[in-house]
């Protein structure tokens, strides 16, 4: 057992209710953190005593390479302590928490409408989905029945956001392999998606669009025609990414058979989302626990068989088509009605516990809410999408080459602030 998120010299337990949140008590330090090369195992003896044994992370012969926290290919501030044998990876110890912002604790002090702002900033690439989960759990607790119009618009927005994320994913995959052209193509088309969303929501990257009981604003008058135009534009473009990058022989050489994980291990490690579906695990929340209007639309759950980086990439590409299908089914049939059901000025959730999960862009994202009937939550827990993916990297990469660490990380599609919360 070792510290995952906080500094080793941090004292106290932040999620306890008696933790002192005084900013002066929690000042930064420019001193380097203490590096601990051991982990502690705790166990109970037969007589009921708590004993601990400490294990060493490395042996004296190990060659340890530290990657991160500031590394261009880790998509943020992830730190991987990698033990190498020549070029071969022997073990990876992920160190997280370089962007741990304490969102779960902040949610306990904020009122419900205030907490909504935090999820958008947690994973900015699936901001809509994350907010959907949080809004969903609060609405479930309050027992709000949404109108069809709200649910239709939410579904369309979720899928637009998924396309946005997958375009950025394909772009970043290319960039991590050094293919700058495909990166620019992906970012170019992402701007078109952002334009469509911006016209309705007013935000470019972080939209703040959903709110408890509906939406922030009604859709733009041009929204329907813009979305149709976008769908028409995007379909041939996705083929272009494949032409430029995806079907390239270099990509196949770098991706095929790299970072393989079979279905059983994916289930064991909890690798959800496209990364898990690439190995055949059917885990789409939209199919198996449908929310919004996903039970009314016809779409295919993409599952592939190899479970390597190449299949993860293809899974993302094919999901763009599926998202376009969903949007095209819904966009002509948005029912009329209220876009926002008026709520009380002070929103309180009755006592109880709720869990609501959505299919985020790279896995299942869930929110657990423990309410004591107050205007702010007693405990709010987020199930991040990327934490399990990073946890599985060690298993995926053991015995592979160090250069494949970068490509596997690129193909997994994780966002660090989402992991660290």
């Amino acid at each position, binding site marked *: 057992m070792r510290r995952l998120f906080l500094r080793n010299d941090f004292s106290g337990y932040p999620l306890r209710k008696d933790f002192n949140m005084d900013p002066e008590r929690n000042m930064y330090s*420019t001193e380097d953190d203490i590096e601990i090369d051991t982990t502690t195992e705790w166990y109970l003896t037969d007589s009921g005593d708590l004993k601990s044994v400490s294990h060493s992370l490395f042996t004296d012969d190990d060659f340890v390479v530290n990657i991160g926290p500031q590394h261009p290919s880790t998509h943020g501030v992830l730190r991987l302590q990698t033990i190498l044998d020549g070029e071969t990876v022997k073990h990876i110890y992920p160190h997280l928490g*370089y962007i741990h912002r304490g969102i779960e604790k902040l949610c306990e002090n904020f009122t419900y409408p205030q907490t909504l702002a935090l999820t958008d900033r947690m994973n900015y690439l699936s901001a809509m989905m994350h907010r959907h989960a949080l809004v969903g759990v609060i609405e479930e607790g309050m027992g709000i029945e949404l109108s069809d119009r709200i649910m239709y618009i939410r579904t369309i927005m979720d899928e637009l956001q998924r396309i946005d994320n997958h375009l950025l994913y394909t772009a970043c995959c290319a960039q991590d392999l050094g293919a700058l052209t495909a990166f620019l193509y992906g970012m170019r088309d992402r701007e078109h998606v952002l334009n469509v969303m911006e016209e309705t929501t007013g935000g*470019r990257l972080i939209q703040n669009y959903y709110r408890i009981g509906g939406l922030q604003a009604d859709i733009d008058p041009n929204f329907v025609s813009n979305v149709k135009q976008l769908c028409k534009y995007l379909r041939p473009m996705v083929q272009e990414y494949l032409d430029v990058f995806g079907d390239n022989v270099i990509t196949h050489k770098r991706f095929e058979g790299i970072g393989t994980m079979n279905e059983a291990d994916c289930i064991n490690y909890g690798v959800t989302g496209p990364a898990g579906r690439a190995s055949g695990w059917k885990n789409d929340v939209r199919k198996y626990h449908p929310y919004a209007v996903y039970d009314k639309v016809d779409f295919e759950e993409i599952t592939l068989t190899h479970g390597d980086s190449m299949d993860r990439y293809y899974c993302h590409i094919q999901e763009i088509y599926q998202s376009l299908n969903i949007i095209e089914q819904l966009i002509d049939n948005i029912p009329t009605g209220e876009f926002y059901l008026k709520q009380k000025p002070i929103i309180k959730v009755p006592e109880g516990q709720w869990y609501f999960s959505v299919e985020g862009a790279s896995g299942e994202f869930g929110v657990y809410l423990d309410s004591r009937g107050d205007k702010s939550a007693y405990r709010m827990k987020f199930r991040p999408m990327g934490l399990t993916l990073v946890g599985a990297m060690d298993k995926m990469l053991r015995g592979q080459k160090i250069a494949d660490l970068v490509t596997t990380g690129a193909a997994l599609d994780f966002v660090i602030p989402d992991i660290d919360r």
Partner: protein
Amino acid sequence: MEMRKPKIKAFPYEEWKDNDTLRDMAEKLNDGGTNLVLGNLDQLINWGRSNSLWSLTFATSCCGIEFMSVGCARYDFSRFGFEVTRNSPRQADLIMCAGTITNKMAPALKRLYDEMAEPKYVIAVGGCAISGGPFKDSYHVMRGIDEIIPVDVFIPGCPPRPEAIIYGMMQLQRKVKIEKFFGGVNHKQTKEERELGKSNQTLIFKEKLGISPEEIKEAREKAWSEAKKPAPKPVRPVEAKPAAAIAEKKDTIVVNKPVTTEDVNKLGKEIDALDKSAKTETNEATANQE
């Protein structure tokens, strides 16, 4: 430093210092078809420096994605000379701090800044880097990176739009253009700087920005403790009473001695006399009315 006086027959020494003469000479030469530009070498170097500022890719959260879009085709900051981003702090001119800096990340940011070669600049992008943003109540977030590294330009927003980021970067260009390069930015390290390695921290804070980090920290803490105080209870505004006939102030009666029975009797008689006179007055008044 002592200047050696140059001796040129056709150009007396006094005229070296005279800008008008130089300008006249340049105009004459230009008229004659000679290409000649008069200028300051500082300006030339700053022109070059400001149009090739290369930034370090340092993105921790959302602002980093906007920074990526600024680098891509639609916004394209290489139009303004931010040609490429460097992955190594040794090759970078400026650090774009895009995103929240947590307590765990703070030493790493400090180290990255220290590793950069002078002259170096810092841009704080987004609310989190400026002040902690929406997370400033948290137990693990730094409230502004200017507490550990000197910041040249702040770009507000959550996250700032790409146009705002470009605007902020161009502000930095303006700042670079007016800097004194020879003897200023490009000065020889003093003994103190060399020995203590202080050029990165306190000296820059003091010389470049004219502030001391301790003062900032104290001011911040003060502001914090005030912000944390419970808000004063709203006071209902007292309705202004209509200005009544202002009673003249009477001299206060100072009693030195204890009150005796004689005094009380005397006072009683006086009051009785007053009452009688009042009654007679009212009687007269009623009689008049009748």
